[in-house]
């Protein structure tokens, strides 16, 4: 790197830093959301959801998978990443299998999981996943490989329309990194960084890899339209709204003291490498992070990550009425044929939203178990589910659940 380049880089970093300050300033005046998990209400599914649809995903030899680790929804497709089989499966919206992108053994040379996560360019109809630091493999929506690209190193990427990309640089333990990242997030257009946010020293990190509880989860969650994505991070009770031009600390969560970490838990250097032990010994009841944040209309849905949040960890919150409903306390009923609304044992939160529905999934083992329990009710299942129960088995693929929340949750409680 010659002197000019160094000078240019320094200038760019300075500009990015100023932008981050500006962006931060733009975030003043965020919305405070008070959440007491113990006070969350519940209700019958029919009281809370306007519509509940079950979409069995076709099970055949090529399409068999275990669980949904990432779900992305386009106008006509469900794109599903399953780490169990290291593949991205493509299903039509009616559940018919459409194609598959297999990570193969090569991807596992880069990471034990193979494909860690994928990102989608909806405009171009492209599915991309990263191999290692710079390789990007690009497939079309039929699952066919189109090309390879190279990009700057980043763990997670989100693509907005018009090729505006936001990168997630967070790599907490990388002291030997030669690149000088000073922020968690950076925005690029045509390969050039034009803004960044959230100061973070990669050379002198305060959070060790062992401190971080959800290393493989995506930090970006769908905002319900093409230009908004939400960002969350560990030990921080703020949800940030990211768009091609803006960065806003949109929602600040407040929990009762017994659920809260000390304010400096994230930033204190002395806690480096000790956070897991501290959580276990002193803060076992505390919320570690807010994950799976999704928004449909005026309803947000989020999950709380913590050592004791085994159940009762996912909530719907109406921004207008401030009503808090625990997903765990929503009871299936006649409206959804007494079928489960979410995974039982391994439920970690809502998968995503398409701006209209929240999406969860249920394993076929749970579906058939419910059918067995329901046998005394003499139910008549709706068409697709009836066919699924008649022709399928507990070894079939998971079933996608579309949940359309009632627009005004005030009435439901």
């Amino acid at each position, binding site marked *: 790197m010659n002197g000019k380049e160094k000078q240019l880089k320094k200038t760019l970093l300075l500009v990015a830093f100023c932008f981050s300050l500006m962006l931060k300033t733009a975030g003043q005046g965020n919305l405070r959301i008070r959440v007491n998990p113990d006070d969350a209400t519940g209700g019958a599914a029919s009281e809370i959801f306007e519509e509940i649809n079950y979409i069995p995903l076709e099970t055949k030899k090529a399409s068999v998978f275990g669980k949904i680790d990432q779900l992305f929804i386009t106008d006509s497709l469900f794109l599903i990443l399953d780490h169990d089989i290291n593949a991205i499966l493509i299903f039509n919206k009616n559940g018919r299998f459409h194609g598959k992108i297999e990570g193969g*053994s090569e991807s596992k040379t880069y990471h034990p999981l193979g494909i860690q996560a994928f990102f989608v360019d909806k405009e171009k109809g492209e599915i991309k996943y990263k191999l290692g630091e710079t390789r990007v493999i690009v497939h079309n929506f039929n699952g066919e490989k189109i090309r390879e690209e190279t990009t700057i190193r980043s763990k997670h990427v989100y693509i907005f329309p018009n090729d505006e990309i936001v990168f997630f640089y967070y790599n907490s333990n990388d002291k030997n990194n030669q690149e000088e990242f000073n922020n968690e997030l950076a925005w690029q257009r045509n390969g050039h960084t034009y803004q960044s946010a959230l100061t973070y020293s990669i050379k002198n990190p305060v959070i060790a890899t062992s401190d971080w509880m959800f290393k493989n989860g995506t930090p970006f969650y769908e905002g319900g339209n093409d230009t908004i994505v939400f960002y969350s991070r560990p030990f921080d009770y703020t949800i940030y709204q990211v768009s091609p031009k803006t960065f806003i600390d949109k929602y600040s969560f407040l929990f009762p003291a017994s659920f809260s970490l000390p304010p400096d838990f994230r930033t204190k250097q002395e806690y480096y490498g000790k956070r897991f032990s501290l959580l276990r010994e002193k803060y076992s009841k505390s919320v570690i992070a807010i994950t799976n944040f999704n928004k449909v209309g005026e309803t947000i849905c989020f999950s709380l990550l913590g050592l004791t949040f085994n159940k009762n960890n996912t909530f719907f919150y109406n921004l207008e009425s401030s009503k808090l409903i625990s997903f765990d306390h929503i009871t299936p009923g006649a409206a959804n044929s007494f079928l489960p609304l979410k995974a039982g044992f391994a439920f970690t939160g809502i998968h995503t939203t398409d701006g209209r529905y929240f999406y969860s999934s249920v*394993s076929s083992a749970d579906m058939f178990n419910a059918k067995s329990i329901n046998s005394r009710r003499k139910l008549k299942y709706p068409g697709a589910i009836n066919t699924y129960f008649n022709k399928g088995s507990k070894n079939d693929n998971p079933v996608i659940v579309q949940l359309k929340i009632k627009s005004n949750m005030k009435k439901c409680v």
Partner: protein
Amino acid sequence: MRVVGAIILTFGLIPWSAYSQKDSTWTGAVYGIAFDSAHNYILGNATAAIYRVDSSILINYQLTNNYGEFQFERLPVGISLKIVLSYVGYKDISIPFTLSKEVKKIDFGKVNLRQKDNELEEVKVVYKPPVRMNKDTLEFNADAFDEDENAVVEDLLKKLPGVIVWGDGSITVNGKEVKSLLVNGKPFFGGSTRVAIQNIPKDAVEKVQVYQQGQSDIGTRDSTTEVNIMLKEDKDTGYFGKLAAGQGNDNRYEQLAGLNWFSRKTQLGVIASRNNTNRITGNAVTLLENNTFKGGTDMDYQPQFNLPGINKIIEGGLIFQRDFIEKTDFYNINRLYGNYFLSHNNKAIDRSSETFTAISNDENIVTNSTYSNKSTFRKHRFDSKYETKKNRSLFSLNVSSLFDHLLERTSSSNVTYDTFKTIQSTSELSNNGVYNNNLLLLNSSYEQELNNIGSSQNLKLRLNYSGMLNRIDERRIASSEFNSFTIPSMSQVINRNYNNDRKDFENSFVAGLDNLARLKIIGGKSLILGIEAAVLTTNNKIDNKVYDTSIIADNNKLNPFLTYKARYQNISVSPALILSNSISKTLSNRYERGFTTSLNIKGQFYSQEVNSTQDVQNSRIRYYKFIPEALFRYINYRFGEFKDVYSVKFRQHSIFPNAVQLLLIADSADIYRVRAGNPNLRPSDVREMSIEVSHTTFRNRNQLSYSANFQLGSTRNYIGDSSIIYKNGQTNYYYVNLPGHRFLNAGFTLDKSYKIKEQTLQIMVSANGSVALVPGVLNSMFYRSNVYQHVSDVKIYYYPASFLGITVGHNWVSYKMRQNGSSLDFKSIIHNSNLNIYSALTPRLTLNNHISFVHNRFTGGKATYNIWNASASYRLLKNKNAEIKFSAFDLLKENSNISYHNTNTSLSTIYNNVLQQYFMLTFSYFPRKFGR
């Protein structure tokens, strides 16, 4: 760790009847939903219980299902009842109702429960819910279950839904075996389930908790089921014990005294037993297990009628446990455990035997012997263990010591005949000696996870040290008079005085680093690298002084051949490189299949040196051995259905000759078995392959598990015997290296259990067999024998009702040896069938019958006898603290113990004096207090 998420114990909507007097008039039903109207949600896993209003008797109860629903059927009509709903953190609600002939069904709809305003709010507890889910723990409330006032925890467990106490003492909860039973979170008196559940009164129990404890098992989502007995706060200190004395005819007696005290942090138990009825346990915990308040139906604690001789036994022990932290859990332990045991046996054996020995194809000899032995054997054993677990590190220290003292006087007369019944030799032998053996063992291990990548991938340091200090001294006088008629030159009269001392000192140190590095190989796969080093040193010092004595001359002369000082030292260093690779394929909610390969590239540097005052013993040898191991394991785990494990292991290792095999100098005073060591012995190299298969079901009912294993191998330089058998019965043995040793071992176990209503049936089968080609040299001729051995055991436990237990067992042992190229063919088969019937005729009167049918068949004869023991016991006093018991043993008076002993060239038929019919009256008192 406790499994996060739902406990896989599905109890919802299974009504558990607590009242057995249902009849056809019980036709009522009630339904409803437990509901929190303030928060607008249903309450799943809430407890619904139905009681009679007049007597508060619990009639039925259940946990609500995922929809909050409860549903009771077959309820009494025309009786005032009440339903009580309860849920953790909520106030109970009680609704009275009466079902009538006109209104047989009531739907309560949504029954609203209200949260307690705060955690400190005291609510008057009227009805304790019989069962409740408290987070991931299923809790049974002991007070809700009506039992006899003297009931123990075992009686309570048998009443709990989903819990089965099986005939062999194991416990399952919804089909999952309980791996550990704790009392207030701690092991109880040595961790024995039986000591805990058959002594602790049901009234001392607050609740029984059932939960899942996680377990790392190459990444499978296995977990184990644990049961914790929580004692009531005022009952967590107490004592229990047993005092018993019995007197029988023929001067038979048995006495026992035991007292065990426990508090929140400390447990101390003392127990002692004295008898001449061949009841031997060998350790304090077994002694405790066989003398519980409840008493057992077990057929294993019968007098040992096949034990040779008359045994006067004293056993006693002490158990101590101290927890330095009051509330221990999976992550935090700081515990000291001590166990002392004394056994003392005065034995008198009178034995006659006939030994058939083959010399060649057409020549054999028969030796008839009478043998008498009077001995006193005293053994002290002390074991202690300290363990501490905190912050991903585990340290444990074990110290054990053993003091054995044997005083023995033996004498024998022997006559040997040839094939034509001509006397070849006679002998008179005697041996009077004192033997002492003092042993000190120390074992310490330390494990530390050095990072936190993930539980199975963490870099882990392992250190283990064990040391052994052993001292043996032997003081004995042996005399032998041997008259050889065909070879007169071998006739001899020998009197010897032995003063032999031996000191052994062994050290073993093992250090290992697991998950040291990941090595990338082709195709994106990686190998996990670990290293290990083991160092073993052995130091034996032998100081033998043997005097030839002459009664006539009254002088002692040092025997220059048998007297020597020797030092045997060896050091073994084994560095190893461990490469492993695991490939697993998981399909969530369906299966997990994993293939593990592990290659242990291991070498062994072995150095051995003998320095002796007998030149012939001196040697110095060094070896380098390549002793690799390879393991292939495949696991197929179907969630909620079964787990199959298949493994194949290849192993090559060496067995080095020990000090005795190298140094032993032939002592002609032994007459019939003159054995000599061989300083030129080389190590045996064993190559073996083992295959193991196991299957375990995870069904809620009628589980099945089986396993099979095979071991196939060969030994190069097998250390065997070269023997010369003389017609006069004398045999000289010499250790030699021999070629051509092969072996095949196979084992099989099966465990199948059924639960049909209140009846339990458990079938346990085990079978082990081996075929070996064993080389030997007989009279300078090399031979190989085919040796077949087999042991199989079947036990069936059938409990048709709580007052009746039937156990049937069959044990089958067979042995067959055929020498290749000769007509030698030895066979022995023993069948031993047992039937045990336990019946509690009334709550106080118990009958026990135990019958053994023994059928022995062997080359040249057979023997059949049956032993029938019966007892009747009656519990006295209000608390059943006293027991009077009448027992009759060997009612048929048929015990005539015959046993067999084989070598590769001989078969002995042995008749011992044994315990025979006797009757005994025993009085027992059980002092016990649970509570301050």
